[in-house]
């Protein structure tokens, strides 16, 4: 019956709402003879000094479109997105916090945005000092002596970290074969370990959702290069046995790698270096608020213990006794480069701007993030199933177990939340919670917003009981309704094609 209403209303709404809700492709707005740009007249001879055979005639199919159409197209398209600035975006593991605008302003200063990394050192002192200062701050926050800013995102940071471990082990004669990774870990962990040339061995979590010490003990051997541990883990649970874990790993000559994507839970409160962590990547685009931009860019600095510093990616930023800064390429034991230039410098600017705004009070970030997550946990316990009752730090993972009995999945709940004006939590991750609803509110959500979210989630739970179809058929009010993802993979259409070129 509710399906009927939904359908009728959809039809009705089509009649009342005749505006087409789909925006054509930019190519479909194109029309011969239109133009959207102009360039200065060429002030040198218009020479083409390249052999004919190496040239193309035109970029067939490319757009011809005016500036006003481009402005409208992208403005209209943007309005189909949900974003942090519209409301709660509680994607677990993603740390979707407020992105202060001052950071954008700073990153766009011509002295940062219109600068080339291969300019002479004497006219690059501002950038070098900025990188150096950010490194110092991240070292202070992690309690580890040195940091590379080069990795482009978390995953590349993981790779860099494991490669440094490998290099250090190689120096001992044996790079070892295996990296241990808990079953709750993010997918990039095993993938990065693999691309660093290691086999991955999965560690089963215990009933508390944490590392099973005896399982670790028996898995840990002199074949194991490292344990990759997420702190707190992807359930939001802090490994309270962290010191013991470190001891076990170190005892066998292995390294303790910390996936710091969840640093938001304890930044400014505790230091990984004191926990026995040897190497840790951070996501500036999570903990340090550089905006996620619909998928990126990120930046994944890696902090390392003393033993790993010789292996940092090349170049490092160093300070001379006279206070000037330079790039040090002369690092024979470096793992090498992971990319061009110095890394995602624009993200360094934003992160430094963000950290400067908190300064020595940055622990407030973690405190508030943890209170918020626990408040949601308290508000939804009993309504949604909590597989692991271990205390949460910055995020909480419920499941759809209760709702599944009414035929409603976590995905349905996620979609229905959209109708309530919220972005859904992360679903289907971590893998150890079937039907997961992984909720990370971050510190930048206030009580009224959390209360609204909690009551929406409770309301949806009620709908699952009383009118499950309204949830199963959700969303009802988004720019498009449920999107056929299976169909997309089945009939792959990955690009627009000019007319005549066939689908």
């Amino acid at each position, binding site marked *: 019956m509710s399906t009927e209403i939904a359908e009728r209303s*959809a039809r009705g709404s089509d009649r009342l709402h005749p505006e087409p809700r789909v*925006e054509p492709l930019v190519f479909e707005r194109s029309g011969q003879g239109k133009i959207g740009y102009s360039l200065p007249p*060429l002030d040198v001879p218009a020479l*083409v000094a390249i052999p004919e055979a190496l040239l193309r005639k035109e970029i067939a*199919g490319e*757009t*011809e*479109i005016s500036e006003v159409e481009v402005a409208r*197209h992208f403005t209209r*398209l943007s309005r189909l997105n*949900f*974003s942090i600035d519209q409301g709660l975006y509680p994607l677990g593991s993603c740390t*979707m916090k407020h992105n202060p605008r001052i950071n954008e302003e700073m990153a766009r200063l*011509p*002295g940062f945005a*219109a*600068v*080339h*990394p291969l*300019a002479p050192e004497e006219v*690059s002192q501002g*950038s070098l000092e900025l990188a150096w200062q950010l490194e110092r701050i991240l070292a*202070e926050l992690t309690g580890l002596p040195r940091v590379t800013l080069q990795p482009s995102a978390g995953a590349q940071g993981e790779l860099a970290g494991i*490669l440094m471990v490998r290099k250090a082990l190689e120096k001992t004669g044996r790079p070892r074969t295996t990296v241990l990774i808990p079953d709750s870990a993010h997918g990039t962990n095993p993938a*990065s370990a*693999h*691309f660093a040339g290691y086999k991955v061995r999965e560690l089963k979590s215990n009933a508390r959702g944490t590392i099973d010490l005896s399982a670790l003990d028996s898995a840990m051997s002199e074949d194991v290069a490292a344990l990759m541990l997420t702190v707190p883990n992807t359930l939001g649970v802090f490994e309270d046995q962290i*010191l013991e874990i470190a001891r076990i790993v170190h005892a066998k000559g292995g390294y303790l790698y910390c996936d710091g994507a969840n640093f938001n839970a*304890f930044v400014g409160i*505790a230091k990984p270096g*004191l926990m026995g962590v040897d190497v840790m990547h951070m996501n500036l685009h999570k903990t340090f608020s550089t*905006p*996620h*931009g619909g*998928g*990126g*860019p*990120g930046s994944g600095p890696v902090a390392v213990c003393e033993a790993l510093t010789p292996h940092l990616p090349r170049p490092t930023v160093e300070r001379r006794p006279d206070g000037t800064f330079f790039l040090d390429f002369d690092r024979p034991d470096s793992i090498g*480069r992971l990319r061009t230039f*110095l890394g995602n410098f624009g993200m360094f600017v934003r992160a*430094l*701007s963000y950290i400067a*705004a*908190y300064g*020595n009070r940055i622990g*407030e970030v973690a*405190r508030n993030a943890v*209170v918020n997550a*626990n408040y949601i946990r308290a508000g939804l316990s009993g309504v949604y199933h909590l597989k692991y009752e271990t205390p949460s730090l910055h995020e909480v993972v419920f499941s759809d177990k209760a709702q599944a009995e009414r035929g409603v999945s976590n995905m349905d709940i996620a979609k229905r939340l*959209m109708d309530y004006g919220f972005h859904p939590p992360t679903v289907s991750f971590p893998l150890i919670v079937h039907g997961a609803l992984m909720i990370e509110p971050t510190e930048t959500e206030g009580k009224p*917003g959390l209360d609204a979210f909690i009551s929406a989630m409770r309301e949806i739970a009620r709908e699952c009981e009383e009118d499950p179809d309204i949830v199963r058929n959700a969303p009802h009010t988004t*720019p*498009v*309704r449920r*999107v056929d993802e299976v169909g*997309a*993979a089945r009939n792959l259409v*990955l*690009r627009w*094609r000019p007319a005549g070129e066939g689908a």
Partner: protein
Amino acid sequence: MKFLPTSEGEREAMLAAIGVSSVEDLFAAVPEAVRRGPALPAPLSEIEIRRYLGGLASRNANARDTAFFLGGGLYHHYVSAIADQMLYRSEWLTAYTPYQPEVSQGTLQSIFEFQSHICLLTGLEVANASLYEGASALVEALLMAERLVKGRRRAVLSAGIHPEYRETVRTYFTNLGLEVVEVPLSSDGATDARALEAAVDSTTFAVAVQSPNFYGVVEDWNAGSSAAHAHGALSISVVAEAISMALLSPPGAGGADIACGEAQSLGVPMHNGGPLLGFLSCRSDHQRQIPGRLVGQTRDAEGRRAFCLTLSTREQHIRREKATSNICTNQGLMALASNIHMSLLGKHGMREVALQSHAKAEYLKGAVAAIPGYRVAYGGPTFNEFTAEAPGDAAALLSRLVRKGILGGIPLSRYDARDARRFLVAATEMNTRAEMDRLIAALASESA
């Protein structure tokens, strides 16, 4: 704290609801021994942040205030006001990866359009949603080729590929038991054709050539492709100056199986080297081995056209260690900037940018060659960058030019000590003739 919306009173109420008496109780699992507050300065206000970071920024030479001729895989091209300002929109800036398509159609459609633009430029059939930047894009392309051509362990790379790309390849390869064979350049600056043929054999899974190569010389994609295909290897075309594809014969027309590289030139500011915009494009029969995200077209429940991420089973969040790459966060916002830029310039504008850049570089090249004591190092055709040779040490020379407000080029000694007198000079549509004449005069006065 201004970014924290919870008042003291609200916090008390929340703690009560949680059932703890203090925030610290929530951190009980964190051992005392590892707790330590940071030794950082006091918080700064916006006014102070502007002074602090503004002060640092002012100590860098920026391309707006100088006569600017640096390239080397990163170029000072035109970025329209609209491409810049559009990125401020919260809906673009503060959205996550579009995992939930119903509330992410903006991002999804933009990526779909970006993929389409890249295909049109490369002349290939499929493109992904972006990679970090050019060097790691080449690595991804090589690893993809290795998966496609199973059982082979060697990649043949032209020495004309950007040295930082090649260094990156070595970083990744060493631990995977893969090998690199480097093919030198001939005296005209292009990859040595004979050496290339000789280097490829049945152990080769890929041949990669860059054009315009790092030294500025335009290569013929077909040379690499036929060498590769003759031995069942894949041909990879590397492009570090993406706007060149608007003028030069594209990878797809030169037999490439994969094209990859750096698309920063297409609407992304230099950002001191990052964020940039890696791209990867390939033939459709290889699409299931492509790394990174892909957006596909589909329908919603009411039959409307819609877009979503697709073929996710290639990716780490599903496939974990068997994924085609470990990449997760990519360069989404830069792909958007580039989509806006390419759409705005379009067919004619991209070509005009390429033509102007080329014409200006030719003007400079001719003039530099005419200065006594200087020469152009290679005879091969160039696009918008060329290798010049100075009468003396290039790095020192270029440092002296800086004092005249000229960033005249990149000393090649940075990459190879033997190239002490050589430097790269790049020109784009942003350079005026007057600026170029200043550079020429400055170089001439330095030789005197």
